[in-house]
């Protein structure tokens, strides 16, 4: 099961508003470049939210009381990139931007064999 999202700076800003943070790495181009990124980076937890929504779609009601999601952020996610969020049949989670892997992890139910 997978879903594509086109990340925009507007989406990053909107997440920053509800997230209540003021981390300039999410909107300051010069600062992001100083830190070695090509542009401001998306919030990792925003994309983890996409994955959690996919988990709800995959596992249904059990996801809300037995769901377990683990992510490792291995690469930045930039605005104007289309990302693919995928949970495979074994519960492996992968988020990629083209051929670049950005997040690896799992989304599974506890006590599920």
């Amino acid at each position, binding site marked *: 099961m997978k879903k594509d999202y086109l990340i925009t700076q507007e989406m990053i800003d909107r997440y920053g508003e*509800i*997230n*209540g943070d003021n981390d300039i790495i999410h909107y300051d181009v010069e600062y992001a470049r100083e830190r070695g990124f090509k542009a401001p980076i998306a919030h990792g*937890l925003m994309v*983890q939210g*996409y994955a959690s*929504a996919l988990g709800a779609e995959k596992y249904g009601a059990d*996801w809300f009381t037995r*769901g*377990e999601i683990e992510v490792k952020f291995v690469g930045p996610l930039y605005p104007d990139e289309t990302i693919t969020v995928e949970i495979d049949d074994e519960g492996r989670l992968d988020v990629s931007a083209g051929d670049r892997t950005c997040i690896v992890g799992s989304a599974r139910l506890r006590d599920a064999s």
Partner: protein
Amino acid sequence: MTRPSDVKPREGDLPGTRWDDFEIGAELPSFSFTISPEIVAEYSRAIENDPNGYVLDGKRVAIPSILSVYLMATLYRRYPPTQGGIMAGNKFRYYGLISADSDTTIVGSGEILDKFEKRGRRYVRYVARFTGADGKTIAEAENISTFPN
């Protein structure tokens, strides 16, 4: 209704915590917040999801990842954030439902589990626990973040 910014110190508002100041085993004091239907809808829109939430057993509930926007408050209320923090990893375990129809009061707390250096970066690992007004666990999280100072 508690917006995350109501309970989470923001980067730049206070002197940021230096990595040396994080103390393994330190308690992250408890704090209370209320998730309203408006917060559920705003969060859902921010993750490109249905603002009406989900219907389980006839009741509307929030996507459990909504607690993500309160997660860092657990750490930052004791250790104010510095600019440029980056998340390295995160784990959430969901246990209980959060209403999308009425207010849900939640208590967050946690503990610093570890801090370490790897490939020139300095990391902090902590656990956060979220319980309902009845004391039952709604979710647990384990987060690893790196900070530039």
